[in-house]
């Protein structure tokens, strides 16, 4: 029914008729796979109509299929019936491109917050930038019907998008009886910045800078995924040393984020000691990054064709020494967390996502591994240099806040070990190589296991070597709906803790 061609290591590519999509998705589901990303493109300038792109992860690796959709009213059968995680992606796809998922249960808008009109689709080729004609969007009543819970004593608590702390904006609508949460509904999209539109027409180097800024805490993951896609498209190899340094940057980022989150988890139960200690360690870590690589969060260290900074011997020694010191300190702090009765009481059985639910709704990444969803691209589908590193995956079954904390602890130690191994085996040689000339219209798909989960960046480059369509995909797309599930039956004051244990990206999925 469909021919899948090997496209890149662990990635297969195929085209399919739109009507056959649900059947194909069903097969993937029965084989134990899951849907990762769904996006669309307007291909009028290539002499086609619209296209829908879907990627699945299966036991074989990533499958990237595309379906041509007919203009002027592109539509495809709903996939959310098979993979519920597709629902919000389909809604966003409609807001941006006007691609309809026929038969979808939920057809409310998702990313559009009155910044453009209902009948306009910013990613379409014929979308005239409003800046040109100077017309503001029509005044419109922001009708977003939240799902109401009816009954005796039920009331709603609207929270956000502006919060008491300085965090990203998102709206949470709780339906509660007393303190118990009956339903939580999220509304996101407040940080929509038109990133995908911005990519259009950029040169490849600038695109790397933009890709890294999709979600700042996952800079290295996005930059690497983007560069991987571009290098795939151009058909270029990168020097071995560059690949190893990229893995180094990715693990550094993972550790920095995990340390921060472990501190925040302590802070959210008012255990400031843990907060201060983890953040002190994180600060040491970031300062060394700034000293060695010129940026605390390693911004723009990964560039198309390799990496932008090299590691000298002095820094290599310091980095190795610091990993040992942090290993010991984190072990000590874990003992403090483990033996703190109140903290353990707050963490256990809070925000539970059962493995069955996680599998059905496609929970992924770190949160998925805490609910027995054993997927880690570094271990199962390793790209260079992970194919030589032998990553140990950390998993847990309980799926509560404690499980997510424990997976973080395990991953911190594993990443510290990986860093020491990388530092010991770092091959010599060049760190960057110019990209091969663009052979014409070409495409690539980068796939990196970031700290939050798998980060995908799909890239299409036009014949002149400029970016034509770039779609960055954050694992938060799949995981936000699971937060709605995890909070059910918990009490309202436990929500911030549960939310923090997932720590999902707003900007990464609002784009």
């Amino acid at each position, binding site marked *: 029914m469909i021919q899948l061609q090997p496209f890149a290591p662990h990635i297969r590519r195929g085209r399919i008729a739109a009507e056959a999509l649900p059947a194909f998705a069903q097969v993937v589901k029965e084989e134990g796979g899951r849907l990762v990303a769904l996006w669309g493109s307007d291909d009028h300038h290539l002499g086609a109509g619209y296209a829908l792109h879907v990627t699945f992860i299966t036991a074989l690796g990533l499958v990237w299929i595309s379906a041509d959709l007919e203009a002027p009213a592109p539509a495809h059968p709903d996939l959310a019936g098979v993979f519920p995680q597709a629902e919000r992606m389909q809604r966003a796809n409609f807001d941006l491109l006007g691609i309809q998922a026929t038969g979808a249960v939920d057809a409310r808008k998702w990313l559009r917050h009155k910044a453009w009109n209902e009948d306009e689709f910013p990613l379409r080729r014929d979308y005239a930038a409003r800046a040109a004609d100077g017309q503001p969007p029509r005044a419109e009543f922001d009708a977003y019907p939240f799902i109401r819970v009816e009954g005796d004593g039920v009331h*709603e*608590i*609207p*929270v956000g998008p502006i*919060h*008491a*702390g300085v965090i990203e904006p998102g709206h949470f609508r709780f339906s509660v009886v007393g*303190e118990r949460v009956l339903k939580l509904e999220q509304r996101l999209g407040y940080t929509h910045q038109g990133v995908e539109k911005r990519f259009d027409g950029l040169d490849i180097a600038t695109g790397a800078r933009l890709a890294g800024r999709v979600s700042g805490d996952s800079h290295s993951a996005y930059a690497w995924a983007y560069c991987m896609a571009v290098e795939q498209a151009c058909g270029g190899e990168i020097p071995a040393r560059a690949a190893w340094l990229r893995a180094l940057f990715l693990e550094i980022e993972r550790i920095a984020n995990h340390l921060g989150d472990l501190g925040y988890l*302590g802070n*959210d*139960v*008012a*255990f*400031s*000691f843990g*907060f*201060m*200690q983890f953040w*002190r360690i994180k600060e040491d870590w970031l300062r060394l990054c700034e000293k060695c690589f010129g940026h605390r969060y390693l911004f723009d260290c990964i560039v198309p064709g390799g990496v932008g900074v090299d590691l000298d011997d002095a820094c290599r020694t310091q980095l190795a020494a610091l990993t040992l010191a942090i290993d010991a300190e984190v072990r000590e702090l874990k003992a403090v967390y483990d033996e*703190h009765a*109140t*903290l353990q*009481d*707050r963490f256990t059985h809070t925000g539970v996502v059962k493995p069955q639910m996680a599998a059905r709704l496609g929970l992924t990444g770190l949160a998925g591994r805490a609910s027995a969803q054993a997927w880690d691209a570094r271990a199962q589908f390793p790209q260079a240099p992970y194919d030589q590193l032998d990553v140990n995956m950390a998993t847990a079954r309980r799926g509560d806040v404690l499980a997510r904390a424990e997976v973080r602890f395990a991953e911190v130690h594993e990443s510290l070990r990986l860093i020491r191994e990388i530092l010991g085996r770092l091959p010599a040689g060049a760190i960057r190589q110019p990209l091969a000339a663009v052979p014409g219209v070409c495409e690539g798909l980068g796939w990196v296991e970031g700290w939050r989960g798998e980060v995908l960046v799909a890239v299409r480059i036009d014949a002149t070597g400029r970016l034509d369509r770039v779609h960055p995909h954050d694992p938060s797309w799949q995981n936000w709906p699971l937060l709605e599930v995890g909070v059910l039956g918990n*009490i*309202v*004051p*436990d*929500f*911030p803790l549960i939310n923090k244990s997932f720590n999902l990206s707003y900007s990464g999925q609002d784009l």
Partner: protein
Amino acid sequence: MIPGILLQIIQTLVAILLAPLLLGWVNLCRAWLQGRRAPPLTQPYRVLKKLFHKDAVIAHTASPLFRFAPYMVFACMALAAGIVPTFANDLAFSPAADAIALVGVFALARVFLALAAMDIGTSFGTLGARREMLISFLAEPALLMVFFTASLISHSTALPTIVETLAHKEFVIYPSMAFAAVAFWMVSTAENARIPVDNPATHLELTMIHEAMILEYSARHLALIEWAVSLKLFTYSALGIALFVPWGIAARGDFAALPLAFLALTLKMVVGGATLSLLEATAAKVRLFRAPEFLGTAFMLAVLGMLTHFLLEV
């Protein structure tokens, strides 16, 4: 009578003026224990000064009650501070208000704050008010029981009489007061919105109890409430001192002992504040629905204290 009135005025003023200093000290100790650089001791005064210089922002839906509540809360706390003997036992107000009235004064302040929180109509205000009422209706009986234990010993609910019995009569060890002391500590963490019941430093609006009620306040209103919060902490500390370590409080008419009494008060507050921050640094906040268990334990301990009094001390 004249010295009584004079001492009453001085003592109330001392409480009002020095209360932010105690809060500053607690914050200082907490910062040290967490291994970070501490804000200056006078930080709470700076915050008050800053807030008094700002323009108040008030919601359109606010009724006069919302504006009035901060003054009421501050007045209640100032009154409460006047009832509790801190360094002198010769208080002119004491015949008018005893320990039970004190609980009533605290309750009055709370009712006004809760009403003001609901008046504004935001979900967080109502949420905080509801939680505050849940906590207080469990904390108040336990506090009363603590007072009753002390009252049974001294045969009076007037605080100066209690202090006189415990500090200025023959020295006796009261086992019942040990139970009462633990209960009192538990109640005062809940009443003062401290860890493990509430977290005064949080920015997570969904977890707040006390802070959720005052989210809509700004400028002078917020300053008064913040000041009242520090005054409440000071009053509770003074209460703890008066009930459990009253030695050093100057006896009625003993003016020569006043300087020493003031020194003793300072010392006790310094030690008390450090202990509070130590306990807070090692504790985490309990789940909201564990707070009733926590306060139930406090109530039970206070009752045990009373029973111990009848078993061992009568």
